[in-house]
């Protein structure tokens, strides 16, 4: 890498002068969110703002849970995201394997159609999808939120790319030994696909957990909301209840932030992969 500055004048690398303020700008708002969720309303509504709460106030969380079904929203989000991840792993790895290894009539056209769908924006799909779901009677149920997440073109593509890069000898040996296609897939191929499956799981978790527009459109019963929808609507009604809003925000973001902190390397690999293969 090029060095922009000659070292030696400062006791530390000049890059710190850029990185330290940047790092703080990126992380401090989240820290403030966490700290504010433990403040009383009186503490929040003052200027200049305080960063550290005087003592641990839990009223934000208490009011949030008593005035909204936030716990229900949390459970709903966990259900939707879990179904999304499990289904993505199962269906997209199967399809990816099918498109990479198996020869069958219609494979080419089906794959081209799947690739073409990547360009279609959700905004174009939401009106007819809503009407379609209304007709089969799943609007306003959790199914409306998770059915679009059962599989995705991105997932199929990701898994197919991975399997194309995998040497086929092992599978061929297993097939010759008389293992069926399904058994070969289950016991030989899938264990080798762990890195790709991890990437797919993380990206599906991120996207499905954070999704707002579609569940907002598809669900209007507030007991079936996901966290993002519930919070967005709650915020629309109670613009100034900051301790409750921040408590809700903590609930909505902390699970993923904690997962990120614990598995940072895998998350970053996932983001990189999205960028390179996406």
């Amino acid at each position, binding site marked *: *890498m090029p060095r922009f500055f000659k070292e030696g004048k400062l006791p*530390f690398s000049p890059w*710190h002068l*850029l*990185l330290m303020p*940047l*790092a703080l*700008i990126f992380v401090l*708002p*989240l820290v*403030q969110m966490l700290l*504010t969720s433990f403040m009383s309303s009186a503490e929040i*509504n003052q200027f*200049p*703002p305080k960063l550290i709460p005087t003592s641990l106030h839990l009223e934000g969380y208490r009011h949030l849970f008593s005035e909204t079904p936030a716990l229900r929203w949390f459970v709903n989000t966990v259900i939707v995201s879990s179904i999304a991840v499990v289904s993505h792993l199962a269906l997209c790895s199967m*399809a990816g394997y099918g498109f990479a290894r198996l020869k*069958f*009539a*219609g494979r080419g*056209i*089906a794959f081209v159609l*799947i690739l073409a769908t990547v*360009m*279609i*924006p959700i*905004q*174009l*799909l*939401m009106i*007819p999808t*809503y009407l*379609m779901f209304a007709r089969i009677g799943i609007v306003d149920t959790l199914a409306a939120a998770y*059915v679009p997440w*059962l*599989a*995705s073109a991105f*997932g199929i593509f990701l898994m197919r790319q991975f399997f194309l890069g995998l040497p086929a000898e092992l599978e061929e040996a297993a097939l010759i030994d008389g293992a069926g*296609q399904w058994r070969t897939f289950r016991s030989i191929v899938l264990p080798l696909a762990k890195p790709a499956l991890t990437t797919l799981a993380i990206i599906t978790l*991120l996207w499905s*957990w*954070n999704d*707002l*527009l579609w569940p907002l459109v598809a669900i209007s019963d507030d007991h079936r909301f996901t966290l993002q929808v519930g*919070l*967005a609507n709650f*915020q629309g009604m109670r*613009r100034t209840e*900051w301790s409750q*809003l*921040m408590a809700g*925000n903590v609930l*909505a*973001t902390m699970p*993923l*932030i904690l997962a990120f*902190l614990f598995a940072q390397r895998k*998350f970053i690999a996932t*983001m*990189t992969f999205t*960028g390179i293969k996406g």
Partner: protein
Amino acid sequence: MALTFAATPRTQVASFKKGPRGRAARRNLTGWAFAGPATLIVIGLSIFPAVWAFFISRAKWNGIAPATQVGWRNYQLLVKDPDMIAATKHTLLLTALFVPGSIILGIVIAIALNQKIRLIGFYRTCIFVPYVASAAATGILAGFVFNPQFGVANDVLRHLGLPQQQFLENPHQAIYIICLIALWGEVGFTTVIYLAALQDIPRDLVEAARMDGASPWRVFRHVTLPELRPVTVFAAIWQTITAMQLFDLIYTTTRGGPLNSTQTIVYYIYELAFQTQRLGYGAAAAYLLFIVTLLLSLLVIWYSRRRGSEVF
């Protein structure tokens, strides 16, 4: 739907002629057993609704009363609709600020994070964390930080001796603040892909240029930047799509206000279809959005091809 596809292209079937007919049928069955479920879901939830959306876009319909066919009238009205024109302007302004912003910031931060200095792990973690937070939560948090009465942003301005601002409540500032918030949430992504690309640049290339006496700036300009071009093309397209489809942040900050100053195409479509039940008109607006996004992406690809970069 799987059955229709299984029966279609003759050329493909011909290549399976090895062995008896039964074996080909079995092979097709196995193939579709693997690929069918996901294919059915993806195509059933995108190609089929996309085609349906086109028919809806040529009708006047509130979802309840029978639809009236109006041909291209929705599209004709849309291109003259002052709200649509304003929404398009806001969307393009947002895109024009967000795409270069996230690319330049991404490159700069990635170069900084690629240095071998202390605390680098801490910096990386801090800079990537916002990307994991949902845009909805980010919007709610931004409403707090940029609150005109007691937000931190005004406190910072006060310390700097600058006048207090209304931020999201000022129609002249709101869209720029939203762009700033979007950058805060998304720069982690461009940074990560640039960082990966930087680490892929062969060391010898940079070393050789430096041995030849090139200044750090010239090395960056003539060695590093060209090596990053494929990533830049991808980032430009991906971020264009992100900016054109920005909804969550606007929904949880301004809801299109104040005075419609942050009304984007996506927000307008949402209002048309799900607040005022103008399904046909909303679908037509969605098709226009699709076409504009597609054209912008093609523009990026065309421009990058002309500059001699072969990524697509």
